[in-house]
């Protein structure tokens, strides 16, 4: 081997691009910080304020057990809203998932479907509930259920489409070769491959929907949200505290049970690893680092699929 001489050392490559990006980000954050209209002095009140609220909620008069009954019933309603909403979303999103998958339907159709799904996804449930369904069916949990259902169609549809696009074409080919009609091909060639993952997505969506439904009451769409807001506004802190506890415990319980079910389903199917949890919503195909995810690249990218 030749011994390299000192003057063969390369020079450090320019880091201009990286520095520019960092500078840009810093400027953006700086702009936001300096132009926002916020009374920063109030921040000093925060620890005190929070401590006071915490004290009022849980300590001053002890826990408000009298509100436990209400809390449980209302939380149950919220969970039911999430349950039904997720079911609606799941059922309706499945065919849409097929339509939105490039390998099942033609490019144009699938693109249109995907864009529609994106549009639905972009609007938060609570707004959908407030603006669309309450005028239609009046206040109450019905509106909330429909709102969650419709929003879920968007997310689940997109995720399902991506899973379908990522399947192994082998069984599909085999089904077609055996003379199956399109619907049969999908039922026997595609569905078995994608069902475990899609069901896992449904469960995950349920977990998220429980959180959303707990809040819908704020606009009058049912569940524990309205009572919670009322309690806070009218200063009935012990009641609010109990309701919050109910929300937290219930959500964690749902997470645990659903998480367990998801893991069982994914392991049982021997599908790609992970816990059946999509990277919350969109699209992370970042160079293979991290868990196996089935998500592709996002809204605008026509040639999606797992990158």
């Amino acid at each position, binding site marked *: *081997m*030749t*011994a*390299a001489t*000192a003057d*063969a*050392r*390369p020079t*450090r*490559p320019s880091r201009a691009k990286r520095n520019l990006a960092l500078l840009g980000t810093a400027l953006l954050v700086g702009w936001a910080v300096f132009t926002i209209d916020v009374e920063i002095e109030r921040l000093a009140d925060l620890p005190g304020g929070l401590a006071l609220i915490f004290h009022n909620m849980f300590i001053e008069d002890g826990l408000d057990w009298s509100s436990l009954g209400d809390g449980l019933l209302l939380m149950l309603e919220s969970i039911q809203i999430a349950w039904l909403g997720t079911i609606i979303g799941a059922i309706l999103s499945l065919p849409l998932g097929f339509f939105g998958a490039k390998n099942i339907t033609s490019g144009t159709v699938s693109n249109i479907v995907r864009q529609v799904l994106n549009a639905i996804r972009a609007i938060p449930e609570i707004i959908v509930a407030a603006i669309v369904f309450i005028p239609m069916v009046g206040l109450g949990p019905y509106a909330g259920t429909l709102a969650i259902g419709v929003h879920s169609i968007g997310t689940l549809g997109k995720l399902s489409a991506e899973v379908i696009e990522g399947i192994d074409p082998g069984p599909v080919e085999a089904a077609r070769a055996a003379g199956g009609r399109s619907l049969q091909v999908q039922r026997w060639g595609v569905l078995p491959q994608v069902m475990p993952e899609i069901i896992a997505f449904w469960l995950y969506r349920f977990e998220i929907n429980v959180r959303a439904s707990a809040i819908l009451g704020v606009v009058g769409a049912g569940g524990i949200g309205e009572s919670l807001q009322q309690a806070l506004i009218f200063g009935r802190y012990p009641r609010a505290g109990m309701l919050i506890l109910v929300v937290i415990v219930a959500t964690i319980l749902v997470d645990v049970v659903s998480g367990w079910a998801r893991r069982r389903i994914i392991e049982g199917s021997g599908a790609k690893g992970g816990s059946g949890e999509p990277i919350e919503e969109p699209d992370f195909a970042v160079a293979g680092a991290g868990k196996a995810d089935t998500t592709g690249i996002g809204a605008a990218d026509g040639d999606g699929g797992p990158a």
Partner: protein
Amino acid sequence: MIRFKNASVTYPGGVQALKNVTLEIPDGQMMVIVGLSGAGKSTLIRAINGLVPLTGGDVLIDDVSVRHARPRQLREIRSKIGMIFQTFNLVKRTTVLNNVLMGRLHGAGTMRSVLGWYREADVEIAMRSLERVGIVEKAYVRASNLSGGQQQRVGIARALAQEPKIILADEPVASLDPPTSHVVMRDLQRINTELNMTTIINLHFLDLAKVYGERIIGMRAGELVYDGTGAKADENVFRDIYGRSLTADDLMGEAGAAASTTG
């Protein structure tokens, strides 16, 4: 000097990876360890820098116990021991230079290293290590863009950058093709003679072991079963160590033997 005194390692499952190994390795020696997978080669080498903690006995480096070293002491000990891995263990996403600078981590303060503000002296040492293995021109290249042999040389440079007294190499050429393997082995040999660093190498290929091993240690089922020169290690010896007749898999073969000018 490295001394093993009845060193034993028993894993939680009950597996005894090392059984009462007693051994002395004088400074500056080039020692090769051979044996089947699972015979204890990896464990033996990792016991020296404490990556595998002993469950019995002790290993002493210049009369300092590795087993009883407190965390800070252990890091100090490790900073004087450079290690080279079978899978290179480079950070693929970053540059060669950054990888080599990992060898200077111990000396650089935590603050400095987190911010990446290495002292000029450290960078100089890193560059010189790269020159010594002959790939300084790749200093700013992303590690993943290099060939296997080049990556291993970066690994060696990283170890050298520590300015260590001991070099440990755990199957350094197992992932490389024969010609490249010889290049790497010759590098290690040169480092051993020129810089007088104690060099301990795990090898899988017996012909390679014979050529480069001034002293050969044979491990079998966690025990030391052979300790002698390369010259005396013939087929019978190897058969004892391996517990079976040699197969073609145990030899790297003619394909890469002798002077190779590649790399």
